[in-house]
């Protein structure tokens, strides 16, 4: 008899808790943020999480009457883990939006889950062109390698560079960078004499840089994922390549704001092309950088952080427009076509491709107030991703 009463009481308690949970859920809007917090791309995860939390701190956590809940998960830079986490977030936590995705394979692995569950997937970091074509629910706020590579290929021939050797990491974004740089450079009358691909898990750049040295081009075009740039820079200088008359041009991942100041004065004068520099001279950016550095002492925001910040902005704005009605399809429709001023400059989400259209800046590494920054000296406006096949 007592046992039965005890069991009944337990059942009632569970039911009460369960219903309370369900009621609370109706008024929360959950964002599942899957980031590489450990592993090879951990700096990406740290920057995006910091930027996302900054956005929430600045804009409050209630939109259209719903409370925003940010669930951050670590996928350790392994795409199979990303897929599993995305599944758990969608099925167990019932998130309204998936966001983050530090590397291309992670974003592509999650695409089928976004399509099947009709959950918007906001890509804040990964940069290969085909990602937005993998699912109609993918919206990107970061950038593509194709966008920034063509800008450099336009600038180089006008500045005395006729022969280039390209050196990229052997994965999606690297291959994109190599392809679009080569095509645009050929269009402008200069030439890529050799394309080298470096394995992702590469201990030593020495043999590749030695090969470049022996080929004697006017310039070396480099793309490596953010975090590996310092190693390339160091070995470039150690091998005396700048003294041999070879210029270093690269996408901005090599002079990542996160690491730039630790690279030493050897990095001065390197020309890169990218969509964001912490030294971008706009009022919005100055505010963003100041707030970011205040909330995260010792950390300078980089292009990953701005991708996260703008991703949150796109989500918030979409929720504001739809007022929480209509589920994933309505959210994606509200995300398309958003046009706003980001810390990077003006940008908009293309309504056809769901990809980001933004300015690409040409920058040179210079010393400002005793620290190294990428100082912008030229801009190409409203660059659409040239890498779309559909």
């Amino acid at each position, binding site marked *: 008899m007592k046992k039965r009463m005890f069991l009944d009481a337990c059942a009632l308690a569970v039911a009460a808790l369960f219903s309370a949970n369900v009621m609370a859920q109706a008024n929360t809007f959950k964002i599942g943020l899957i980031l590489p917090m*450990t*592993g*090879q791309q*951990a*700096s990406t995860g740290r920057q995006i999480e910091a930027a996302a939390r900054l956005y929430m701190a600045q804009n409050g956590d209630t939109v259209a009457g719903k409370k925003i809940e940010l669930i951050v998960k670590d996928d350790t830079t392994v795409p199979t883990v990303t897929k599993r986490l995305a599944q758990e977030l969608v099925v167990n936590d019932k998130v309204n939006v998936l966001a983050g995705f530090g590397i291309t394979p992670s974003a592509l692995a999650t695409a089928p889950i976004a399509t099947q569950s009709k959950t918007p997937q906001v890509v804040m970091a990964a940069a290969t062109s085909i990602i937005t074509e993998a699912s109609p629910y993918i919206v990107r706020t970061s950038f593509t390698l194709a966008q920034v590579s063509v800008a450099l290929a336009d600038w180089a021939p006008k500045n005395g560079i006729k022969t280039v050797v390209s050196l990229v990491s052997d994965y999606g974004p690297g291959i994109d960078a190599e392809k679009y740089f080569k095509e645009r450079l050929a269009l402008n009358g200069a030439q890529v004499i050799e394309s*080298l*691909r*470096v*394995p992702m*898990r*590469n*201990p*030593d750049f*020495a*043999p*590749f840089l*030695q*090969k470049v040295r022996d080929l004697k081009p006017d310039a070396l075009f480099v793309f490596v994922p953010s*975090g*590996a740039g*310092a*190693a390339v820079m*160091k070995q470039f200088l*150690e*091998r*005396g390549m700048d003294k041999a008359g070879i210029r270093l041009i690269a996408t901005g991942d090599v002079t990542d704001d*996160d*690491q730039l100041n*630790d*690279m*030493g004065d050897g990095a001065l004068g390197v020309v890169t092309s990218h969509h964001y520099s912490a030294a971008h001279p706009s009022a919005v950016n100055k505010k963003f950088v100041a707030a970011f550095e205040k909330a995260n002492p010792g950390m300078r925001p980089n292009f990953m952080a701005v991708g996260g910040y703008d991703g949150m902005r796109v989500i918030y704005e979409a929720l504001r427009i739809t007022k929480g009605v209509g589920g994933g399809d309505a959210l994606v429709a509200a995300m398309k076509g958003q046009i706003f001023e980001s810390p990077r400059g003006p940008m908009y989400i293309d309504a056809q491709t769901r990809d980001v259209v933004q300015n690409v800046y040409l920058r040179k590494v210079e010393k400002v107030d005793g620290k190294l920054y990428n100082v912008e000296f030229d801009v190409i406006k409203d660059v659409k991703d040239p890498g779309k096949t559909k």
Partner: protein
Amino acid sequence: MLTILFDGVAYGMLLFILALGLAVTMGLMNFINLAHGAFAMAGGYITVLLMQEAGVPFLVCLPLAFLGSALLGGVLERTLYRPLYHKPHLDQVLFSIGLTFMAVASVDYFVGSSQQLIQLPEWLKGRSEWGQGAWTLGMGHYRLFIIVVCAALTVGLQYVLTRTRFGSRLRASVDDQRVAAGLGINVNLVFLSTFAVGSGLAGLGGALGAEVLGLDPSFPLKFMIYFLIVVAVGGTSSITGPLLAALLLGVADVAGKYYIPKLGAFIVYSVMIAILIWRPQGLFVRRGGKS
């Protein structure tokens, strides 16, 4: 071409210093220590932290890295490793891999997972060029430094192994542990000091390699495979075996990436497969010794 040979030799010598401790441990104690890379990482991080936080000069950090890792190795040997000597190899593998994961996670937690950058002293940053055309020999001063240090260590270790009493005790214990103990050799002490020195060498290798190989919390997992290749190809019963194996692999890796960049990373593995098909017990194994 000579420059590539030079770079390969430097890389090989670095691999040798890193893998030597593992070879000796496997040969001496018949213990599969997959956590060897963690000791190398410890040496690297000791150097980085001392240079960044306390401003200690690079050259002073190197012996400190050796001592730190040696101490860590000695303590862990006495407390954690000793109970596992007579356990089956699978238990040893599971234990050491677990230790590696713990090391990776704790370094990640305390120091963070970004690549650690070292600022070398000015005199190590230069480069000298001799000859011209295809026969230029370009020597980075840092790689020259690595070769000199590792060569000196090799000569020193070979001397200790062949000319000192400790060396003969070590060789006796490797040959047959029970007979050596029966003859009054304190095998436990030999094991402890050898493990400590092996870990110390790994730490020194990690410190030297931080500039060339990079240093982040996943270092043990990334480079363990190279250490195991050196040990598998070179055998565990001498110093010269791993030395030649490491040099061969270093040169093959660097030359392979230079001449056939598409195959790049696979060259090392193909060389290993070829050598092991030819000599399955390794390049240099003494006849009659315990393999």
